[in-house]
């Protein structure tokens, strides 16, 4: 019996102690006619060896391409130490640290994580993680509405340059509470949020303005201007950021005159593998004044009976297990293991290391963009300052070009055509520090061949 230690003797002894005839008898409170039959649709048990073999084949099926897709999930080098440590049984198979004295490892680690996130974002307080960047943004929106006492509306302004999937997720989550997201159009030439587009909302009651830096297109926004504008309008500012970039470019805490109020984002770049999209983790940081509106767990430093330093869950009165229907969120299980990995990653790299990664990404992106701008018919749409992503306009159907590149083992980018009609045949291309010059040339080759093939088909 896989994973079940009971021998026939054990079972007999236990049943005798209980005073039952059979295991089945232990289920006698379940109405007999409700009892399930055989689960025929489920295959019989396999051994670890068989599973390993089956799944290795499946993993193999999905491998082998050179990937230039970013769009919210980024390939970075992950130091070997990161998962060696995170996968230690003591981290991986512990529960939420409810018994603080027996969980100081996890608790101190999260305290350190919180400290790293506040350092990166330039804000005061961090929680222990949310599910992912997108749902994290939904929580940030809810939080901003609770926190902005000056706003009576349940409306939030959101830049059109925020990740489209994030906008969808936020909407799925907040619309039930009758919260309205109002989108600010972006300038399709500069791929940024124009102050002029905001002016139409001047004087309106919104709880917050949501902006992304770098934005979905990898372009840098003028966050200082946007932040100051929102603050003048008595809106809170929610910044969606990339933690890698935060070591290089101005972090939310430094935006404008007073800094953004809340920063959220996807933690994946901090040592978490792409892994089909998860588990990643969402981070959220805010100014001290907003801490009681923060969703999720927070770890605090305190002392024990002897006055010795120790760590414990704190401000639990915000949470569902204490506050139930009055909680700041329903989140309970979060993304602890990913946070463990991220904490190790951030410790290993530090400001200097992450900044080097950021710079290498930046250099690679620029290099690839300049290589591509030499390809006839192709246009690099993103012109302003950017971070590891840019928009490329193709002379043919972007869907077809990408398919042709796929056949050559190159995933050329994320297609923007469907989501952004104004960006027809445009794709979003990403090059991180993992890409070598050879890889970049491989991209160019694959693209050129694909374009030629499509040319040929047309003739």
């Amino acid at each position: 019996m896989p994973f079940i230690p009971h021998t026939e003797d054990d079972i007999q002894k236990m049943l005798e102690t209980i005073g039952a005839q059979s295991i089945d008898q232990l289920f006698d409170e379940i109405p007999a006619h409700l009892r399930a039959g055989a689960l025929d649709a489920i295959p019989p048990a396999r051994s670890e060896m068989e599973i390993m073999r089956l799944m290795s084949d499946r993993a193999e099926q999905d491998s082998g391409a050179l990937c230039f897709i970013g769009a919210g999930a980024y390939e970075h080098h992950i130091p070997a130490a990161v998962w060696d440590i995170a996968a230690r049984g003591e981290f991986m198979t512990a529960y939420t640290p409810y018994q603080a004295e027996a969980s100081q490892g996890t608790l101190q680690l999260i305290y350190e994580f919180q400290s790293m996130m506040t350092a990166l974002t330039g804000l005061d307080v961090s929680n222990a993680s949310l599910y992912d960047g997108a749902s994290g943004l939904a929580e940030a929106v809810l939080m901003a509405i609770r926190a902005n006492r000056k706003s009576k509306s349940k409306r939030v302004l959101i830049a059109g340059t925020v990740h489209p999937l994030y906008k969808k997720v936020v909407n799925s989550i907040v619309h039930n509470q009758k919260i309205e997201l109002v989108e600010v159009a972006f300038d399709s030439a500069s791929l940024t949020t124009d102050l002029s587009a905001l002016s139409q909302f001047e004087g309106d009651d919104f709880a917050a303005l949501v902006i992304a830096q770098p934005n979905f297109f990898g372009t840098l926004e003028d966050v200082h201007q946007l932040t100051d504008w929102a603050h003048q309008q008595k809106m809170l500012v929610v910044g969606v950021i990339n933690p890698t970039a935060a070591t290089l470019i101005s972090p939310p805490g430094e935006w404008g005159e007073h800094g953004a109020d809340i920063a959220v984002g996807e933690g994946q770049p901090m040592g978490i593998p792409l892994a089909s999209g998860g588990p990643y983790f969402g981070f959220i940081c805010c100014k001290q004044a907003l801490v009681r509106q923060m969703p999720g767990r927070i770890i605090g430093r305190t002392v024990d009976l002897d006055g010795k330093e120790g760590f414990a869950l704190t401000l639990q009165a915000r949470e569902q297990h204490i506050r139930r229907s009055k909680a700041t969120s329903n989140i309970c299980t979060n993304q602890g293991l990913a946070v463990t990995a991220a904490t190790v990653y951030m410790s290993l790299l530090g400001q200097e290391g992450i900044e080097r990664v950021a710079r290498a990404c930046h250099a690679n992106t620029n290099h690839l963009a300049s290589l591509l701008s030499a390809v006839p018919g192709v246009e690099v749409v993103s012109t302003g300052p950017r971070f590891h992503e840019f928009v490329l306009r193709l002379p043919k159907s972007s869907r077809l070009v990408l398919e042709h590149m796929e056949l050559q083992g190159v995933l050329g980018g994320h297609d923007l055509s469907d989501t952004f009609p104004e960006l027809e045949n445009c794709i979003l291309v990403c090059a991180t520090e993992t890409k070598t010059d050879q890889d970049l040339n491989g991209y160019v080759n694959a693209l050129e061949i694909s374009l030629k093939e499509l040319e040929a088909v047309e003739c």
Partner: protein
Amino acid sequence: MLIFERGVKGRTATAQAPLVKADVTDIPESLMRKNKAAMPEVSELQVVRHYTNLSRKNFSIDTQFYPLGSCTMKYNPRGAHKVASLPGFLNRHPLAPESYSQGYLASVYELQEILKEVTGMAGVSLSPMAGAQGEFAGVAMIRAYHEKRGDHDRCEIIVPIAAHGTNPATAVMCGYKVKEIPVLNDGDVDVDALKEAVGPQTAGIMMTNPSTCGVFERQIEVIAKVVHDAGGLLYYDGANLNAILGKVRPGDMGFDVLHMNLHKTFATPHGGGGPGSGPVAVGERLLPYLPTPIAGIEDAGGEPDYCWLGEEALPDSIGRLSAFMGNAGIILRAYIYALFVGRDGMQRVSEFSTLNANYLMKKLADAGFDLAYKDRRATHEFIITLSKQSKELGVTAMDFAKRLLDYGYHAPTTYFPLLVPECLLIEPTETESIDEMDGFVEAMTQILKEAENSADLVKGAPYTQPVKRLDDVKAARELDVSYSPQ
């Protein structure tokens, strides 16, 4: 000592970053970071040593018996972790085209089918990232259902008071009011109270069965009828699915929708607080509303061709709940676990977790502990109450919990559910051996003796952990939630 305090200006784990520091000239100065982030500056050895030593300050399944009720701390197969960590799985980009996704999609699809079978439901979406998000998806579907039918007055969700805190919190996040109903002394829901509570304002009820009282809700069919008759739907909180896996199916009990905690029942690691995975399963009525994406199949004769079903395929969906596809790696681990235990193993999960719980309950009762529901069968978990000890000896459930740590056992869940005073909710799980449980009973018996003879000893516990009892009040009052260098 904090990792920050081990740092020295200029130190770093050199091998881990690009060796060259590339120039940046095209970003305007105003958009560049002004102050370096105050991150740790430490060597690779320091990091490895610091976190290795920190890990050793944790209790975990891999090191201790961990009978934390409602949390299902069972063995997390190392094989599942290894398989899910194959480079092919780790390196797949979430937006990779379907041609580079067939291996992953096949696994997702098959897990959906397995979960349909064990729940008796018509459809499954794996995208919710934990139990609470599964609850959200479920209640949002209930809402979407009523709205689609133009049934706009249903503004209330009924929740028994024994429910997990996520239930009421979720209902509120979905824009509902919460109506709590009582639970009887035998642990079952008060059906009379329910009858009074339902009405045209009732959107649905959120139930856990077995409830968090550790007993099977015997009136479930009556409850289902009452709620359905009132036009409401039944939500099943499947966090406790371990208790009934393969024995009774939520669909057969009359539920319209449920979430499962794969990180519990399907043995994926808890990771010190996550990640989880909280798939939802629905009956026919709610099929159109499932959250996206879902793995679909196009059977074009030969090899099956797997695809993602998104908005286009499910226009009435409640939408996306994560940027990509939920906690993909946890989903993969759960699928692998299902392959490990197989058809019969599913049933064994509930059989042996129930056997263990009833055994442990009996032994503790024999050792002099009071059961909260002494005339009931234990399910996969059960409750003892230390009211008597608390009153007579001044030793609380919390004291027992802390003292257990000194004996090398993680404490059971304390003070939950709230309706049982001074309670410990105990869940041994099926992967623990009789020896481990006997050791636990032995420890509890010793602590009871200690409580009788030297109460202060127990009240001062723990003594053997990295710290003694912590000052929670100070933690909240003098808030220190991030390190700032001097």
